[in-house]
């Protein structure tokens, strides 16, 4: 009997082609689309593209409505984090709390051994240690391992990333060849529930009772800058240069924000470099990884991981000391630990001063 794999199909090119590859490899493929968000939250999404892909491939396909859970676990979290002065990464949380959790649960229900998505990363089985390794994709521009660091052995042992095996150009080729409706679709880069990418507008419209007030800017010596005002601390992210207004002798950057006092601290670029980074909610792809001391850490997507030393504080918290200072460490973003391309684990960056 064919092995069954449950694949998350969004309607985009990547997941469509991933489903096709699995089918070619002889799996019985079952498609699942999670209905997570709609501007009018009561409305059902048709997921026409996903349905069309499934029809084209001739696979079974189910749509599950998780809009309420997504609102509660992801969107509300996103808003709450911003109003606590952090810069959250909702995709990482969604991968863990929504995508993998639901896919695996549904896979069990439907008797599927494997689950798959159109993510670009690699999973290796290491015979000597009898464990699974999450590996960076070869092409750094496409690599999505950063978003997947919360996966553990239990999940990794059942996940397939079929896209890893082919070139990106091939993905579109296959999609075109298949006549998939998604072949010409642009890749989505923004946060799915902020389709216009304007997170300021989103926060204004979805403040969940929090107030956004204009406030004062400070320098790192706690001195109020008389000429400079800001529009409300949630609108500012560490490392941000744009939108601070003019009148500075040299370029200034957001160094930190304070939710309690509605202050935005700004500083020169060199003041934003630091070696020490504190991390909470730490998870490991393999429980043995927590013994690692030397590794490389990526503090945001689209950057290169940098060598560092990590020191455990307790089971959930640790401290990273980079060999060289890193720029604009942003609370709320994830720090992901790598060892030679292998994802060890990661956690969420915190502002030490607020959490001591």
């Amino acid at each position, binding site marked *: 009997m064919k092995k069954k794999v449950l694949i998350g199909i969004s309607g985009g090119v990547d997941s469509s082609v991933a489903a096709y590859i699995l089918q070619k490899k002889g799996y019985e493929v079952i498609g699942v689309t999670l209905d997570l968000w709609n501007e009018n939250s009561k409305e059902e999404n048709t997921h026409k593209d996903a349905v069309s892909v499934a029809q084209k491939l001739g696979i079974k396909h*189910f*749509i*599950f*409505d*998780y809009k309420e859970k997504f609102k509660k676990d992801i969107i509300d979290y996103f808003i709450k984090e911003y109003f606590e002065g952090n810069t959250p990464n909702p995709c990482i949380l969604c991968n863990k709390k929504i995508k993998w959790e639901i896919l695996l649960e549904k896979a069990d229900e439907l*008797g599927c051994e494997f689950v798959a998505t159109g993510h670009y990363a690699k999973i290796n089985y290491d015979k000597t240690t009898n464990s699974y390794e999450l590996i960076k994709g070869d092409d750094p521009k496409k690599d999505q391992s950063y978003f997947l660091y919360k996966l553990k052995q239990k999940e990794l042992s059942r996940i397939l990333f079929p896209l890893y095996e082919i070139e990106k150009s091939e993905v579109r080729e296959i999609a075109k060849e298949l006549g998939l409706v998604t072949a010409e679709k642009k890749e989505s880069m923004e946060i799915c529930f902020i389709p216009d990418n304007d997170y300021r507008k989103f926060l204004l419209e979805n403040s969940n009772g929090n107030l956004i007030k204009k406030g004062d800017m400070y320098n790192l010596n706690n001195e109020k800058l008389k000429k400079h005002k800001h529009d409300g601390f949630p609108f500012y992210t560490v490392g941000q240069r744009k939108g601070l207004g003019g009148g500075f002798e040299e370029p200034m950057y957001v160094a930190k924000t304070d939710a309690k006092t509605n202050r935005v601290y700004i500083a020169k670029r060199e003041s934003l470099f630091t070696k020490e980074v504190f991390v909470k909610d730490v998870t490991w792809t393999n429980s043995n990884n927590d013994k690692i001391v030397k590794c490389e850490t990526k503090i945001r997507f689209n950057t290169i991981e940098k060598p560092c030393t990590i020191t455990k504080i307790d089971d959930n918290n640790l401290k990273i000391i980079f060999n060289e200072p890193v720029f604009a460490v942003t609370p709320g973003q994830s720090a992901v630990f790598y060892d030679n391309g292998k994802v060890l684990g990661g956690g969420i960056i915190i502002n030490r001063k607020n959490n001591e």
Partner: protein
Amino acid sequence: MEKEIYLDNSATTKVDTKVAEMMVEYMTENYGNPSSMHTLGQKAKFALDDAREKCANVINANYKDIYFTSGGTEADNWAIKGVVEYFLANKKQKKLHIITTKYEHSAILATCKSLQEKYKHHDFLEITYIAPDEKGYISPNKIKEAITENTILVSVMHVNNEIGTINDIAEIGKICHAKKITFHSDCVQSYAKLDIDVKKLNIDLLSASAHKIHGPKGVGFLYIKRKTPIMPIIHGGKQENKMRMGTENLPGIVGFGVAAEIANKNKDEVLKNISLLKQKLYSLLNENLTHFSVNGDLENGYPGILNLSFEFVEGESIALSLDMENISVSTGSACAAGAVEPSHVLLSIGLSKEQAQSSIRFSIGKYNTAEEIEYAAQKIIETIIRLRKLTGMEM
């Protein structure tokens, strides 16, 4: 793909080939508009009334009292709104009272809710929703007790679409008739399946739908007894005796007529067959599984419907797993997977939210065979055992 086993005949049915052939004829050859005076139009007009007669015969109605609609939902909407509009327009009484049940199809419940919403600032519309007993029966006595001097309409379904309970509409009809209250019955699940005689049963308004009896989707009718206080809710030309305007869906209506005739002719035989299949399905499950219960009345319910609650598993998981085996069944009622709201029908007969969410409806139709039922039973048993293992409940 392997053969499909379709056990969702209460949701919809496969169109009978004879029906489909007739429909094609009325799309490609006799495509006239029944309102046209030329020959093609007159042919269409004849076919329209012929279908009307076929549909009427099933319930011993006068063919002129059948008004075709776009389906059961429109017929239900019309019955409720049309009667309310009539009383509003004629200003016969200051307060209007409607009696219906808690487990009607949403076509009735949502219509009632929309009227309550529409008139919430005027204190003249009151609606009483009678609860069924735990087997799903609406007590005629409760209807009787709920009647007030303002009651203008009683609407009680014949066969419940989720649990298959058959209501004593004869008794309810008698009560309404004695009090001169209009009686509507949603007979979408029983039309041309069970014996219905509108005269004997004192039914004033009756809703039916074609696609539940191997006819096409998008066509139904409302039977309106002569002199029933009701107004049209869709306006336009002169069709349907100026009661339901708009060019008739002739292919659909012709198909409905053929489907009704076939279903009526084979009614007893089909009923006997599906009774045997239901018994077979139930006994196979009962021999191999424990911890499940029947929703509705196993012995006296409509034999085409078997609604079961399986402890420790979700109905949705069962339905999806069976779909993987190409067996089509449904959970409480057709709703989006994932956001499973417990069925209002199951809650109304006293099930807990969990019990309601662990329910599955098997609905058997004339095309199902004993082999299919045996195969499906085997797969159901395997599925339940597998899903219970997942939750750590092996039994």
